[in-house]
């Protein structure tokens, strides 16, 4: 998969502190993002949203003319692009409110640039995967839309569970996903006692995606903890 198309996304950044705006812009630019607009007020954010048509927004909660919660409501009523809250308000209630209003993620300041970039990339990957449905692994490609693995020119179908497990791994590509999170992705909330079934599914996925399933390079086991999916370019 070529992730460069995600770096072309138009990003709207809203915060009342100019220095913070400058810093986040520099973090994003350094990671390859080119199309960034900033706003210091909710009114300006609305105006930019109408003309610039952003594809992703980072919002502060405390703005001089309104709250970020009201702003997201107004934005979501007209536009449908992912939003990440980046705010100093770290109370659980604020987080729940933000997620309840349709935010895709909620980050509390202060933050490490690395973590901010990981979250932005994860949101963009999740939101715009349809634009580039082929995910490139070391030995094959996955087409999530068609639920297929393309290995050596052959199309191999994925079952629903295998698809869900692979999707959960892909959302966190390059990072460990716990056994429990994968069971949850395949069997729903609070799954107990599915560890052996998960292992069976992982084995079958490996047979489909790995060149040599007995020494996997794309889907790696982290003993006792979970699995990691290695995606090219990540």
């Amino acid at each position: 998969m070529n992730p460069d198309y995600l770096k072309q996304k138009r990003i709207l950044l809203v915060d009342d502190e100019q220095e913070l705006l400058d810093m986040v812009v520099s973090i994003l630019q350094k990671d390859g993002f080119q199309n960034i607009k900033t706003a210091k007020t909710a009114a300006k954010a609305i105006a930019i949203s109408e003309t610039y048509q952003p594809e992703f927004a980072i919002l502060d909660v405390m703005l001089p003319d309104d709250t970020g919660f009201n702003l997201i409501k107004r934005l979501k009523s007209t536009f449908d692009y992912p939003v990440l809250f980046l705010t100093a308000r770290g109370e659980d209630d604020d987080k729940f409110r933000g997620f309840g209003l349709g935010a895709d993620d909620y980050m509390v300041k202060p933050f490490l640039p690395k973590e901010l970039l990981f979250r932005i990339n994860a949101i963009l990957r999740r939101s715009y995967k349809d634009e580039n449905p082929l995910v490139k692994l070391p030995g094959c490609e996955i087409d999530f839309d068609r639920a297929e693995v393309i290995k050596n020119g052959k199309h191999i179908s994925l079952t629903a569970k295998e698809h869900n497990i692979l999707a959960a791994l892909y959302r966190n590509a390059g990072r460990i996903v716990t056994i429990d999170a994968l069971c949850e992705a395949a069997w729903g909330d609070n799954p107990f006692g599915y560890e052996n079934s998960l292992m069976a599914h992982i084995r079958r996925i490996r047979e489909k995606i790995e060149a040599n399933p007995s020494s996997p390079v794309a889907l790696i086991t982290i003993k006792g903890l979970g699995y990691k999916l290695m995606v090219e370019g990540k």
Partner: protein
Amino acid sequence: MKSVLKLIRRFVGIMLLSSALLIILNFILLFLYTVSQLPNSQPWQTAQEVADNLFQNDNGYVLPEDITFELKKNDTWAIFIDNATMRVVWRTDNLPETVPMSYSISDIAHLTRGYIDGYPTFTGEAENGLVVLGYPKDSFWKHMWPSWDYSLIANLPKTILSVLVINIALIFIIYIIANSRLLKSVKPIVGGIQSLPTEETIHIKEKGLLSELAQNINKTSEILQSQRKQLRKRETARANWIAGVSHDIRTPLSMVMGYASQLESDNGLSEDDRKKAAVIVKQSRRMRNLINDLNLASKLEYNMQPINPARQNLVAVVRQVVVDFINMDIDDKHPIAWETDEALTVCLADIDKDLIKRAVSNLIQNCMNHNEQGCHIFVRVTTGENNCLIIVDDDGAGATDEQIERLNHSPHYMLCDENTSMQRHGLGLLIVKQIVAAHGGTTGIGHSSYGGFSVKLALPMQE
């Protein structure tokens, strides 16, 4: 109202005991008094004694000197009435002149039962007549008239017992009626006093015998309520102040952290400068953790942190924390090993997932903070007796026995109102303890078998 019943029982007990004691005491006194009165109560015997000792010689009737002396000493006179003539044939010298010298049968019956001219008289039977002793006027009250039905005397013990029982019952009823008002007044007072330690507002009706007491209790309750309100207000203000400061510091710290982080990875800078930037990043991360900890600790301390427990698999929760640390890839000096037995896949507990994740994160972070040169961290979930145990060990510097003792038992400076210089350890462990305590669990701090520090959290297990 256990105490009111106890009070009634105690009152009735004391009353019955005192009644019984009073009756026994009265019987003893009566007995003693009667015994003390015995010498004077034997005039009939004295009369018989005189009759027995009066003998006849050639000169007439003679009474021995000692008896004569005794009679005189008691100012008692005596006569002897002959059976045949019904006349007085012998008399003592002190016989009053008004005493007749001859008697009819009806006179005899009269004097036996009563008096001769106001002198109480007692008779003794001699061989040929009757000896009559006359005691000084007003020395005895003779009451020779009454006679009782036989069955009355035969049933006397039963009657006395019944009367006693009826008396006691009557006293009891009178007591209950008389005290019911008092008890009625006491009951709300006792209830009020018992409710004082709770946080509810108390209002007792200020009526009845103990209205003054009720007033004072109401007043005390008002004072307590107002103090609680003040305390709560102060605690809220303090927690809000901490929350406000930590909020205000977040944005500036973001910039310090963000730019320093950029500088740290800027290849255009010298190695030395990048190291300096790394120190700034590290220290600002410490500050961020401190702000988060301070805020949460104050909220937990003042019960302002909502705890939303739900049934969770602790193995999954702790595993996620470990994975988050590994995924963050903060540095490679602190590798984390997952030591949970593979056979243990589920350990259920009712927990607030976010708070428990925070507690475990704090423990792992602590291992890193206290072993800057690096150490291995070992995380394990296991089961104890009705407990889920989370154990975080390291093979780092560890702590002395004294330090561990202090961590286990001394209050944190945030919770301590004295000698704060002795209590300075981080907030991380305090929060862990607070979170675990809020879940009904325990925190144990000790030496690790790996050579460093060990913290064991025990949380109640659910089936």
